[in-house]
């Protein structure tokens, strides 16, 4: 499974000294563990499928389906060329929600843990509770990954990382999804053990 590089850093190297040294292998591709992307198009397809999956969760795919091919292309080209304005001009539409709603239908998120074998946790989770209260990051973890949370009285054993920072557990999930999603429109959350020092 291909992870965004920022996620890999959070997950595997957040405590290592900077700069992060990466070893690039040019042979013996681990075909067993990873899908081989034969071409640039395959990467693009993978990226677009992630965006589509995210929009299926957020808007029942309505937004992405209303876009033209050109817009999809711009999304990818913007990312590829590191042109944020090009990218955001389109991605902005994916981050909107109807005024009468109070958020997305479901939040596209994935929770990664280094300690388990399971690649990641992904479930349907709404940004707003039935009583109208906004769900927070804490609510999400309590629901889908209670082990990540410190027990009431116990000491904090894990860090909840997004983009190299630890947002407060009180942060509304909808806000996080709008502002801290990766380009593939998913919120990639890493649960890593608290550094011992």
């Amino acid at each position: 499974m291909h992870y965004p590089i920022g996620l890999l850093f959070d997950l595997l190297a957040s405590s290592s000294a900077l700069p992060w040294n990466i070893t690039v292998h040019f042979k013996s591709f681990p075909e067993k563990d990873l899908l081989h992307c034969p071409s640039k198009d395959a990467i693009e397809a993978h990226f677009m499928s992630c965006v589509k999956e995210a929009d299926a969760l957020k808007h029942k795919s309505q937004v992405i389906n209303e876009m033209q091919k050109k817009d999809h292309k711009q999304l990818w080209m913007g990312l590829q060329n590191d042109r944020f304005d090009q990218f955001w001009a389109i991605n902005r539409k994916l981050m909107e929600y109807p005024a009468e709603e109070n958020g997305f239908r479901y939040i596209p998120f994935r929770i990664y843990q280094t300690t388990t074998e399971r690649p990641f946790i992904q479930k349907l989770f709404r940004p707003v509770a039935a009583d109208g209260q906004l769900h927070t990051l804490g609510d999400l973890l309590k629901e889908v990954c209670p082990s990540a949370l410190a027990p009431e009285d116990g000491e904090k054993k894990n860090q909840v990382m997004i983009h190299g920072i630890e947002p407060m557990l009180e942060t509304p999930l909808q806000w996080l999804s709008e502002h801290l999603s990766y380009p593939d429109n998913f919120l990639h959350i890493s649960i890593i053990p608290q550094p011992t020092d």
Partner: protein
Amino acid sequence: MPDSVLWAVDLFGRVYTLSTAGQYWELCKDTQLEFKRVSAATQCCWGIACDHQVYVYVCASDVPIRRREEAYENQRWNPVGGFCEKLLPSDRWPWSDVSGLQHRPLDGVALPSLHWEWESDWYVDENFGGEPTEKGGWTYAIDFPATYTRDKKWNSCVRRRRWIRYRRYKSRDSWAKIPSKDDPKQLPDPFNDLSVGGWEITDEPVGRLSVWAVSLQGKVWYREDVSHPNPEGSSWSLMDTPAEAAQISCGPHDLLWVTLWEGQALVREGISRNNPKGSSWSVVEPPTSENGIMHVSVGVAVVWAITKDRKVWFRRGVNSHNPCGTSWIEMVGEMTMVNVGLNDQVWGISCDDRAMYFRQGVTPSELSGKTWKAIVAGRESDRSHSGSSLSLLSAGCFFGDEVRGSGESCAPSDTDASSDAERPGPDQPVPAESLDCPGDPKGSSASGPGTSRTTEHPVEVASPATQTPRPEPRPGPASTPAEVPWTNIDLKEPKKTPSHPVAGLPETTGLSSLEVLPLGLEEPYGADDHPLWAWVSGGGCAVEAHSVLKWFSVQLGLSPSVQTLSLSITPAQTAAWRKQIFQQLTERTKRELENFRHYEQAVEQSVWVKTGTLQWWCNWKPHKWVDVRVALEQFTGHDGARDSILFIYYVVHEEKKYIHVFLNEVTALVPVLNEAKHSFALYTPERTRQRWPVRLAAATEQDMNDWLALLSLSCCESRKVHGRPSPQAIWSITCKGDIFVSEPSPDLEDPVHPLPCDQMFWRQVGGHLRVVEANSRGVVWGIGYDHTAWVYTGGYGGGCFQGLASSSSNIYTQSDVKSVYIYENQRWNPVTGYTSRGLPTDRYMWSDATGLQECTKASTKPPSLQWSWVSDWSIDFSVPGGTDQEGWQYASDFPASYHGYKTMKDFVRRRCWARKCKLVTSGPWLEVAPIALGDVSIIPESPGASGNGHSVALWAVSDKGDVLCRLGVSELNPAGSSWLHVGTDQPFASISIGACYQVWAVARDGSAFYRGSVSPSQPAGDCWYHIPSPPKQRLKQVSVGQTAVYALDENGNLWYRQGVTPSYPQGSSWEHVSNNVRRVSVGPLDQVWVIANKVQGSHSLSRGTVCHRTGVQPHEPKGQGWDYGIGGGWDHISIRANATRAPRSASLETAGERSGEQGLPSGPAQVAGALQESLGPICC
């Protein structure tokens, strides 16, 4: 869009207004009276008070309502005493009106009513037809009546002069009583209903209104001569009706419906511009025979009615041609009344709970709307109004509350006090106290808390979480805190004791007591405490179909989710997590990036390409659009700088060719939108000189906007222009209303070798304007085609520029309205008179103004796809030359000069039809409501004098010709605070203020004026000095720089004012500078820039070109010639912010060096002079 207000009356007769921008009902400023009915227009509101008298409430404005009274003093010459008041017996009165037929002594001219006051005493008018007269203002003639001239001749036997005096309407923001129509000989017949409308029938006079009223005896009355300058009207006229009327409703245009006591409706037919009272009645039967029509309300093309069973009905098929409509449709809901306001929006008051509803979803295509939505706005008046008066009271109340814990006796007095403060005025019903007592047990038990409770209360209120008021923090019995508000509601019903005429009072007193307890903090009303409404009028309330109103959101308790859910609420809570995220991100960036700045970029240069298909206006003849492939290649250098090239690949004679444009050479990208094409023009200095830009067209508007935004961004990047324009920027506007701005380079005004102005880089800013004016302190104002005033917010981008090309804040929606005109042409023939059958050689019978293009009503489209129609075709009566009653203008043949009356020699006639269209865009502009402007001028700051504390002088002319001076304008508050009206004797057209507070203005009759004694301490100056115009020319615009004064006449001649000195700022004479000028702007360095009418390039002609006057020197203020810049459809330029003087020393040094090389004598003055002569060889 400006804020406007909804007017309403509650059950107690109190009048409230609700702003489209607000969410609270505000109590009408004049609370002396209680009202039964109100009917509003935009600028005023008419009402029937409980004394059955009619009142008009004229809203305050910075521009006074003033009317001129005039009288003529006539004299005849006799050999003994010269000119004297002794006239011949056959002559007119010594003091008369203009015709001489009526005696009119100065002391006999009285104010029309108590609501007027004199502005000053009588004075002599020394302006005669745009030209100043000799002292005394006398004009001479051979005899009465005759043609008068300024000059006294040997045969001038009589003379006269005009005395003028202004009166001013003073009863603004208050209810002014309209004299009753009652004839003392008859029994009084008080008014029962009243309706105001008809403002769309005609613009003349300004603000004309139709005011209709119905008396108790069922008679219908019409108020004559109501208009903006005459808000009270003059008299009541009785209209004949076939039966007794009960209620009346008059729409903005020509609809007028009346309900009869028998249940039918009467519809007025034949209402038109020439006959606003209409001609006949027709009857419309009610929807069902058993339930007659009780109430009716009409708009432009809708009629809503209520029948006796409270059902709501919508009349289908109503329009100007068929005011009766076709059939009734029953709507949902039961209402006591409905009211149709502007844009045919509808409000209603429901039967059961007297709540007010707004009809949602009313659009031109769906006039009946979708649903009724309750307006739950609270009454701010109670809050803010009592806020000041209650600040003491509430504190007292609060402490009183504690005391009250011991006994119940204080409670009534407490509520009494609050209701007192809430409802000032003499006619407050006395029973408040007695009524309160029976209902109070619960209330007082509720207010008998322990001290612990009361001390806890303010703490809770202060916490941010209670921003959304919950029932808990309200004081109440400790046992059942949450029930308190509900108890209060329960009280409402039993309290409606039948013995009392005003039923809802207990509720409001209960409510006010509640309101006082939370220490007057900003706690809006509960939805349950809504006011009980009796009447509503939306005639002054402009709700656009798409606008967002805040009237529906104060739904306390019922759904707290609505407020807590929106993320922007509870700022305190968000602050913590938001701040923390921000802080962490900053730290992360520091940790991960800043220490590694010295690492080289892995990829040094990147090329980024965007390709597409466009159409290109080809270079060769015959010119036409050809399909081309285009590619924009963008390189990023290792220093991060970006540069781009645009390639256009085309095929000619099966040979592939391309042209390319370096984007760092592009000087302007101009959208050229028309009905059919989405195109834009791309200019470089070379192409500006040729008057032949690269023109490209896209298939869709979106596509064009994408390209335009991308190219524009690339141009800005390659020139390193970003962010907001600097305060010195030069602003200009094209004839399409597009706004462009250019950063002046320091050598732009270099006296020796200025930057050629075809090299200036112009970038577009969102928005749509007709006029823009700036000054070097960053104050920028604009005026739209619809005369709306706008102030620049400091943003950039907007319009089609999104993302990085646009600032994220300071961008707002902007709209503009303009009219499209077509002409209907007819020729006379002996058999049938004027018909639409012309001669074969004639122009099209429906054409544009020139007659060359055929323009029919059906085929004429809005100017571009950005515009959409907002009205139907209507005859334009305001064309120059005048029209007859039907709008026709006559002439002997096409094309000729047209006049507004028919003579024997006229064989053709034409009339002008206008249709309004509207554009909605966005840009860094905020509206300066409510006064519409015709011209504006901001003081150019002299170099070095900027920022010395005093406010920025800004003068304007309103669209009606009033001269205004804006107070409180500064860098921080560029919109200023209010207008100061400067009286004039005639409407003005143009104004300009120079750097030394010299204010010059041009009146609509073409004469010029200088305003004396304007200074920071006397911002409006003291009096006008009439300056004679250049001979036989009518001026139309004036511009004043540091000291130079330039004026422009209607024939495109530019004039320089000679002899202006500090001691004699009016100057001595006009000197001709140039012709072919459309608009002039003189800057703080006395630099002169104009828009030239026509400029010939090497490839084509361009109309509307920016030009810079060259060789303007202190000793040669008129300059020598023109340097031509960007052009082709430019309409307006403001150079007045650019006070950037060329680095004088530098230019002189280099000049010195160069001249030194040439062996010319040194010494600054001589060098400059010498350089002038040798300028050519050095510069080129």
